[in-house]
């Protein structure tokens, strides 16, 4: 009596809870009525909560667009569903979020991680589990140097963005003195290092500083202004960048203010205020689908799926990452395994909405165009690719 039966009851309760959790995880819209078709799941890992959640939500919506369009077409012998795992964009949550996806047997591949920090902490688990992950947006250069066997990304590393941004600063903005500030995250440090190296190569004086997200940028702004730079470049995410811009402009700094792709979201304008953010420049190895005529059908589909919301930063990249996985699945038909999908991705060569999706042996996407955005009248406007903007 006692112990065994209690253990049994505990087991039953655990199983019941697990079943409920699993059912909840599937989401309400999974119609299992079709039955006959094989159902694959694609995992999503990114920040769906936390102060930089918007970038994760942008990516998730892009993925959802691809999956919905696929399921509606019904042309293949399988259907797809998404299993989302929230890593809050912080490294500490990465492994838990990854393990959650690894533990779901029918997750065949993952779109994500969205941020570089969680990518660095999650990828060892994915590599070990042999589960493919295609990141729409993790740009830290070191990610493809750490020996991960299942990491691919559809965006150029920050070595590319840093060099292009340096080019733009030196040639188009003719800056002689640049203050480079990073947020000490894996992403920020990677980007600022690439930028600073490229700037020094161009003969530009660089003042470097690193600062963990702090909210209070008043003394940092004083420090920046005292250094007398022509331009400030921030390598970090929009929630902090918005406050930095506010602090700098509040102190009368009138030089150029720039930031990288992590700050490239409309939330920046909202959080800094349109007037304060006016004239801020952003670099990103990502084009703007909304103003690209070739992406018009993607934009239309995205709006349809996401109740009228426009694609944001990384939405197109996540859509392309999902399409790359779908193209492998299509080739494999109903017999795909985690291994076959991982190996199949190397051979992918499809026209994406953001760029041609084709990977080199390290998992980097071949296209490397970097665009400059400017905030004008409360809108992010694409100025063009750095290659054309820096032409004399």
């Amino acid at each position, binding site marked *: 009596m006692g112990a065994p039966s209690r253990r049994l009851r505990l087991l039953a309760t655990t199983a019941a809870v697990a079943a409920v959790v699993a059912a909840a995880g599937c989401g309400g819209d999974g119609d299992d009525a079709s039955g006959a078709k094989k159902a694959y799941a694609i995992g999503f890992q990114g920040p769906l*909560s*936390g*102060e930089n*959640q*918007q970038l994760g939500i942008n990516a998730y919506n892009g993925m959802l667009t691809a999956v919905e369009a696929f399921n509606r077409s019904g042309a293949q012998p399988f259907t797809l569903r998404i299993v989302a795992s929230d890593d809050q964009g912080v490294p500490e949550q990465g492994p838990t979020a990854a393990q959650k996806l690894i533990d779901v047997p029918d997750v065949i591949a993952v779109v994500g991680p969205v941020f570089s920090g969680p990518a660095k902490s999650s990828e060892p688990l994915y590599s070990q589990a042999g589960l493919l992950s295609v990141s729409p947006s993790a740009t830290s250069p070191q990610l493809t140097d750490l020996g991960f066997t299942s990491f691919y990304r559809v965006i150029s590393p920050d070595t590319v963005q840093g060099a292009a941004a340096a080019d733009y600063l030196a040639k188009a903005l003719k800056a002689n003195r640049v203050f480079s500030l990073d947020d*000490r995250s894996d992403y920020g440090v990677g980007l600022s290092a690439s930028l600073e190296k490229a700037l020094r190569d161009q003969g530009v004086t660089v003042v470097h*500083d*690193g*600062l*963990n997200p*702090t*909210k*209070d*940028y*008043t*003394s*940092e702004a*004083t*420090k920046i*202004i*005292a250094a*007398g730079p022509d331009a400030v470049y921030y390598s970090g995410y929009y*929630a902090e960048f*918005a*406050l930095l811009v*506010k*602090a700098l402009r*509040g*102190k*009368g700094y009138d030089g150029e203010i720039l930031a990288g792709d992590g700050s490239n979201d409309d*939330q920046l304008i*909202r*959080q*800094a*205020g349109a*007037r*304060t953010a006016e004239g801020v420049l952003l670099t990103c190895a990502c084009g703007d689908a909304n103003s690209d005529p070739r992406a018009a059908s993607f934009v239309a589909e995205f709006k349809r799926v996401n109740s009228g919301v426009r694609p944001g930063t990384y939405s197109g990249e996540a859509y392309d990452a999902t399409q790359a996985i779908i193209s492998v699945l299509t080739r494999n038909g109903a017999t795909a395994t985690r291994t076959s999908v991982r190996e199949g991705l190397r051979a992918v060569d499809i026209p994406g909405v953001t760029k041609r999706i084709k990977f080199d042996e390290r998992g980097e996407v071949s296209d490397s165009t970097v665009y400059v955005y400017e905030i004008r009248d409360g809108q992010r406007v694409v100025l063009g690719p750095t290659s054309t903007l820096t032409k004399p």
Partner: protein
Amino acid sequence: MGDPVAQLAIDGLTVGALYAVIALGYTLVYGVLQLINFAHGEVFMLGAFGGLYAARGVLPGGDGAPGGLASVGLVAIGIAAGGLAGAVAALGLERAAYRPLRRRGAPRLAYLISAIGASMFAFNLAGKEFGRQNVPVPDLFTNGTLLRVAGAEISTQTVVIAATALAMLLAVDHLVSATRLGQSIRAVAEDAECATLHGVDVDRVIVAAFVLGGMLAGAGGFLYAMTFNASYTMGFVPGIKAFTAAVLGGIGNVRGAVLGGLLLGLVESFGGYLLDAAYKDVIAFAVLIAVLLVRPTGLLGARLGRAA
């Protein structure tokens, strides 16, 4: 720009004045209950959202920030609404998390746990209701350099924050030292039982201390959000800082809280500039420890009203 000393001093005093405003809430409650209200940071946060939504609600549409009298009115509405929201939050907190325990004569530790619980409840509820993104206070006036003093740029916003904080600090000091309510608060702080015998309604005084502290924190939250945006987690760090300020000056001592706040702001501002902004908090807490080693009761000594 030349020497940033004046700039750093002004920035430090501005944020320090805000710390002082929040610190008063800790000190007032400590004075009457000998307890640290660990949910005070959440009162501050809720005040920020209260002020923000009120300001947004009455803000006329159209481009550009309003000017002149409209700006003054809007800022006043934001501060008042922030204060009101803070007072309501503090009142609710006292009713839900403190009074039931007080009725049962619960041990000190129980108050601490119930305050932490209330704090978690409040900020998670705020995250759910107000979203988990940072939310900016809309532009209520055109912020720019208002005046230059000794090479320092003083923005309109700095003046608004510093002036409001100063006015509140003076008002509270007057209230505690020269009014009947202040007299009751001091009496309860000195000896609650004796105060009861002299006809002071201790429950009422405790509520008054919470409401007063809540009003200050709420209004301070709104002022803080003008610079740093509001978010559901915004209460934590300023809450700890203000607590530090209160202890630094002497917990339970109104003028001590003000002194502690201003000092902490200055130390942070200069420390962040001279060493590294990332060490700002380290410096602040190092100063606290150093002061407590020499003067365990804080700079001006503990106790409301008179020295212990």
